[in-house]
């Protein structure tokens, strides 16, 4: 007798295991604050803060093929200064020199074209990397210009300028608004947070009583709302799906897209919903947008109303960054037609797996759906042999496998 609620909880359990643990969260917090303090001591007046999935609370283990891969936690290191008075390459050098001046950081530091990475080993042997993007304040001139174009002008007050690599170690400033994006997300997440806080508080406190003296101490970043869980479930399902293609990393929808579209779609949804109610709603909406592939903007709007999360006018895809009107999150979609095509294929499969799949009668069939959605190992590590009625499958080695043919 299938138990749908049980199955849903099992999926959330699998995803929880892929999330960062409270211990790692606390550890990462200590580490990044230490870096900020150190830079201060080096004479760099910097404000360091989380961005991206770490800021949104939607981190999942980064690498499907390598379960021991380090978690990537993204940060902005915003230095006081006028972007017209300092060159991006100079700022990078200042920070790099400061970090290299410390024995501790020097050996852990890796310099990339657009960020600095410091890798740490966590207590439980899981690694995490702190990726630092240097930044300065964006100019008032640029902020004004962007405000005029924006649906949410107040968000632009926190706009920054970050170095963009143009090849050959040549850099220019480009606008970014990590804080604004986070502010936007937190506003949408708030009602969900209020609704689920009471439920989760006691549970988290019980599980982490070694870390916190009282319930009140637990940072709200450790509660995962329904919105955050939906984003995490979709992110990992995405990762497993795209891991199957050679160009998967190049064509998969970036986390910023998922963070944005899911939050925008969920805006105003009843906050006392379950994770799977919200997931079904989001996937239905995403599936509706797939019609934009074949319909003109006019025809799409006629049939489906003025849905604007994904736009496609005159054949050009646009997913507007709510915190930066000049940033089209879907600009790569217009360079490679494979990207939108595979995206909507993925959405379709996510619906099949996570909404329809939950309801299949046969437990074994459900187990297969879980494995194909989240990876055989992750399912085994969380659920053991639950739902499993068959023996282990025999692997096929791709390099030596037969290729289907046709004589004529």
């Amino acid at each position, binding site marked *: 007798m299938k138990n749908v609620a049980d199955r849903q909880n099992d999926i959330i359990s699998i995803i929880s295991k892929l999330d960062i643990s409270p211990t790692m969260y606390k550890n990462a917090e200590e580490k990044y604050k230490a870096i900020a303090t150190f830079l201060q001591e080096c004479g760099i007046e910097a404000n360091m803060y989380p961005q991206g999935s770490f800021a949104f609370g939607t981190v999942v283990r980064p690498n499907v093929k390598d379960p021991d891969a380090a978690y990537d936690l993204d940060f902005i290191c915003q230095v006081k200064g006028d972007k017209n008075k300092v060159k991006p390459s100079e700022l990078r050098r200042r920070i790099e020199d400061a970090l290299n001046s410390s024995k501790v950081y020097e050996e852990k530091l890796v310099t990339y074209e657009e960020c600095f990475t410091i890798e740490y080993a966590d207590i439980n042997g899981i690694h995490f990397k702190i990726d630092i993007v240097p930044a300065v304040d964006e100019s008032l001139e640029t902020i004004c210009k962007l405000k005029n174009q924006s649906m949410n002008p107040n968000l632009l007050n926190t706009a920054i300028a970050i170095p963009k690599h143009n090849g050959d170690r040549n850099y220019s400033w480009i606008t970014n608004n990590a804080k604004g994006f986070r502010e936007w997300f937190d506003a949408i997440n708030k009602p969900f947070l209020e609704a689920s806080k009471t439920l989760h508080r006691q549970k988290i406190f019980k599980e982490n009583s070694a870390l916190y003296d009282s319930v009140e101490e637990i940072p709200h970043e450790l509660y995962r709302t329904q919105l955050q869980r939906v984003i995490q479930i979709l992110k990992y399902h995405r990762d497993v799906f795209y891991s199957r*293609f050679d160009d998967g990393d190049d064509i998969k929808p970036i986390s910023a897209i998922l963070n944005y579209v899911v939050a925008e779609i969920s805006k105003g949804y009843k906050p006392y919903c379950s994770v799977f109610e919200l997931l079904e709603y989001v996937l239905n909406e995403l599936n509706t947008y797939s019609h934009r592939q074949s319909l003109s903007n006019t025809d799409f709007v006629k049939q489906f109303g003025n849905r604007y999360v994904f736009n496609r006018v005159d054949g050009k895809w646009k997913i507007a960054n709510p915190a930066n009107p000049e940033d089209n999150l879907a600009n790569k979609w217009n360079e490679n037609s494979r990207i939108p095509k595979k995206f909507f*294929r993925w959405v379709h499969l996510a619906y099949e797996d996570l909404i329809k799949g939950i309801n299949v009668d046969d437990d074994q069939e459900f187990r297969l759906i879980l494995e*194909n959605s989240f990876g*055989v190992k992750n399912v085994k590590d969380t659920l053991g042999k639950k739902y499993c009625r068959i023996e282990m499958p025999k692997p096929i080695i*791709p390099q030596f496998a037969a290729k289907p043919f046709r004589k004529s």
Partner: protein
Amino acid sequence: MMLTIETGMQQVEALLHSYNGIHIEEVSDDRISLKGTITVNREALNFHLYKDYDIQIVIPIEKEELPYVIDVGNQIDVHYPHRYVDGRLCLETDTHIEMRFLDGFSLISWVDEYVEPYFFSYEYYQKYEEFPFGERSHGWMGVVETYSEIFNEKDIYKTVLLMKAIFMGNYRGHVLCPCSSGLKYRKCHGILTKRFYIDDRLKNIVMQDYELLLKEVKLQSE
């Protein structure tokens, strides 16, 4: 490669032992026909397939023909490019299979290495719209691609030149490699092609394929 009624039945018995859902349907002078259900339980690339398929396996006897499988359960979409109208499934090039079983055909290994992966490829393709292990081009191009892999030569034209070299005569390591690398054959593709000159069984396969290639190309240019 040819199976006699005795060796054929031996192979069949071994197969039936591992695949309980299959039974012998018919035995005649020129073929053994098997029918039934196989359960494919395989995984690759984070995809796990567990499904039953109703099939017929035909094993030619006293003939230089490979066994083949028919999708009697109509579980492969008629539009799938690697399924013939009559339900026959095109598992791989004959070249690939013949080379695999150069030292003697094994029905069990054939099912394990060709039949099951065929169904796996199909289901994966239906779901993800891509072939998990790639696919061969149709016709003679697919055959040449098989040799491309064996000779480790990406260029189709150069692969054909290598096939031609084997077809034409004996191995001469000191001459320049037909691929135009400027290197001596024995320092270039000769390393991978040598066994085709020495082993008559391999040489025969190449010769058959090269002749087929000439015929096909001639037909096409007409």
